[in-house]
């Protein structure tokens, strides 16, 4: 699922959560935003090249699209990402800045601007950009996480000045996530087609190399803010929710119970039971390895704060051994409180309903 892949400067941990509301927003301007099939293919190609670390050719392809459609948001977004990969940060900043001016309703360019500013230690600018992203999309998880990190870094900077110390290798161990995905929310058929064929995405060598020279040293993450905004954020699938119908069937009841058990295990911090709710072929949100995903989930759930997850209004549509499940999820932990609509794909294996896909669908 290439469009679901996350570009991440420090670690392949975070994943942008494009929201349904964003999709709706974009649909209004879809004619303008969505590139033609041909240019979409060219962009796909650019994306592929970028992942292979062939940034020059990737940039060329992107520029081809832009020559025909200079305003194209997705191509410009792609260009910003490629420039970032090429360490042309000021150029990338220019591209994303212009995007925020032309499409102030899109949170992703703001987020990526913030990541770039943060790399330049311009935390105030980074903060402002993230606040803009959040203003446009208040429940935007990545922006919230990044903002938490920015605050922690700014705090660390202030502490350094206060105590005349250099804690750059001690306290602000935070990682900012760049969003790689802009237009998956635009529900384009080409993107969907490639999703099924491309399989899992691995961190490109380039990002790995970068992680090693990254100025921020990896250590225990600082903030509670990072805790659990949307644990499994996946691009909103364009699959119309209309196919989901509530059927009070026996298997529907079973699936519903599985969801309630899953939420209960999460609340009880019963990591084992929680993880057991996921199918062996569960599509991890960022395409990361199952073991990495499990480790991250375990770490987050085991944080000190109590967790309370409530689910309500569960709707189940069963088709044989598959079920589309939609429900309202209320998550509370420490200072963090979120409510979101979750959409899951569940599969029945050995008589047990397991989660195969999990996403936020507002």
């Amino acid at each position, binding site marked *: 699922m290439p469009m679901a892949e996350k570009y991440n400067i420090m670690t392949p941990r975070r994943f942008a959560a494009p929201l349904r509301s964003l999709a709706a927003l974009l649909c209004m301007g879809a004619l303008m935003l969505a590139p033609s099939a041909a240019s979409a293919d060219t962009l796909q190609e650019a994306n592929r090249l970028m992942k292979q670390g062939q940034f020059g050719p990737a940039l060329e392809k992107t520029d081809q699209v832009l020559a025909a459609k200079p305003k194209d948001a997705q191509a410009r977004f792609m260009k910003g990402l490629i420039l970032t990969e090429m360490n042309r940060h000021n150029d990338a900043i220019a591209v994303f800045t212009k995007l925020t001016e032309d499409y102030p309703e899109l949170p992703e360019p703001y987020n990526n601007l913030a990541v770039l500013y943060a790399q330049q230690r311009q935390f105030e600018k980074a903060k402002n950009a993230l606040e803009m992203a959040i203003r446009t999309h*208040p*429940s935007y998880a990545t922006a*919230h996480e990044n*903002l*938490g*990190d920015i*605050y*922690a870094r*700014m*705090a*660390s*900077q*202030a*502490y*350094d*000045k*206060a*105590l*005349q*110390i250099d*804690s750059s290798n*001690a*306290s602000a161990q935070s990682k900012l996530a760049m969003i790689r995905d802009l237009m998956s929310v635009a529900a384009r058929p080409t993107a969907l087609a490639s999703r099924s064929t491309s399989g899992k995405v691995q961190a490109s060598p380039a990002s790995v190399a970068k992680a090693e020279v990254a100025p921020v040293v990896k250590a225990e993450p*600082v*903030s*509670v*803010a*990072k805790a659990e905004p949307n644990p499994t954020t996946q691009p909103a699938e364009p699959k119309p929710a209309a196919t989901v119908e509530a059927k009070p069937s026996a298997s529907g009841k079973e699936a519903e119970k599985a969801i309630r058990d899953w939420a209960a295990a999460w609340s009880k911090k019963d990591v084992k039971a929680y993880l057991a709710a996921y199918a062996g072929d569960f599509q991890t949100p960022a395409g990361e390895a199952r073991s990495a995903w499990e480790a991250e989930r375990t770490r987050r759930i085991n944080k000190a704060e109590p967790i309370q997850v409530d689910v309500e209004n569960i709707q189940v549509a069963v088709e044989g051994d598959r079920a589309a499940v939609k429900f309202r999820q209320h998550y509370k932990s*420490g*200072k*963090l*409180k*979120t409510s979101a609509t979750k959409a899951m794909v569940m599969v029945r294996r050995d008589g047990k309903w397991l989660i195969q896909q999990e996403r936020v669908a507002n």
Partner: protein
Amino acid sequence: MLKRPGIRLLAAALCLAAAGAVSAASPEQTYSDSGPEPMLDQVFAHIEQNRLDAALGQTERLLKAYPNFRLGHLIKGDLLMARSRQIKTLGNVDNAPQDKLADLREEAIARLNAYRGKPQADYVPRYLLQMHPEQKFAVVVDTQKARLYLYRNVDGRPRFVADYYISHGKAGTDKVREGDKKTPVGVYHVTASLPRQKLTDFYGSGAFPISYPNEWDKRQGRNGHGIWLHGTPSNTFSRPPKASDGCVVLANQDLDALAKNLQIGTTPVIISSSIEWLSLDDWQTERTALSRSIDEWHRDWESLDTEKYLRHYSKRFQSGSQGLEQWSAQKRQVNSGKQWIKVGTTNISMFRNPGKEEMVVVTFDQDYRSSNLSNVMKKRQYWMKEDGVWKIVYEGGA
């Protein structure tokens, strides 16, 4: 979504004393709102009411005005950190040097307490009993409050001008020995001005040595030297309350403001560990009582009744190597050969010595004329109250 945890605890952690019994009737007379304290106070007021955004905004303004204000940066760090996790105390830094944190907490307490517990407008430090006409200003230091107060001489009466945050000795007050890292307590004056160019950056915008050890210190066997009022390094706005080797340290801008009012050899600097404040009425009573004793001493000297004159001297009297006995013998001998004595005392200053002992340092210009000898000198006496009577324990040239 990020919710901000309250950090009311932060204020609580400081255990801020509520504004004391004394509250300023007219603040502009007892406090100069020029330092960071008013803004700092607002920051904490916002924090106490859980208005953390407002607190951060105010902290930013504070740091704009005082970019090297470390305490401000600490608070800023806390307010930012509070957006992502619970803040339990002022200076919520992991792995931070605890002594530095403790220093900044002390500074916060000192600054806020000094601001919230301002001295009352019609109260004056007990020590400033009488300034002589040439002393345009007087400096009084309260080490416990980490505060320096500047008074203007208005017809011998002190009128408040400004006050400033200060640091003093690491090991506190009551200096006794060289290198004890303590600040002396007593009545001193500014003896010199050392400009910035002659100093290292450590002393900031300048230094003003004071007259430690004074006559009384020496008599008590106290030693050491080089007690100065001075500034801070250029990258430092202020230092912790207890930071120096005995000097009194001010922010550079405060030192600059103070420097304009200091007269070398003249301006008194009285250092106390905790200022005693007197109402103007009580102050007037004390000053009148002492003035009367000095007048009597003066008249009795002129009377040529040597025994009457000598009753003003304490059994503990000491001047140089002379005790009371030698002093008395010498006075009897000198006076016996005189037909008349006339003593003029002008420019009298009277400064009470801070501390348990009731002692006042009296300095004046003495114009001595007699039938066979005349001389003019600056004289200093230490008067001590013994059984309710003011007696001279030291006398000498100043």
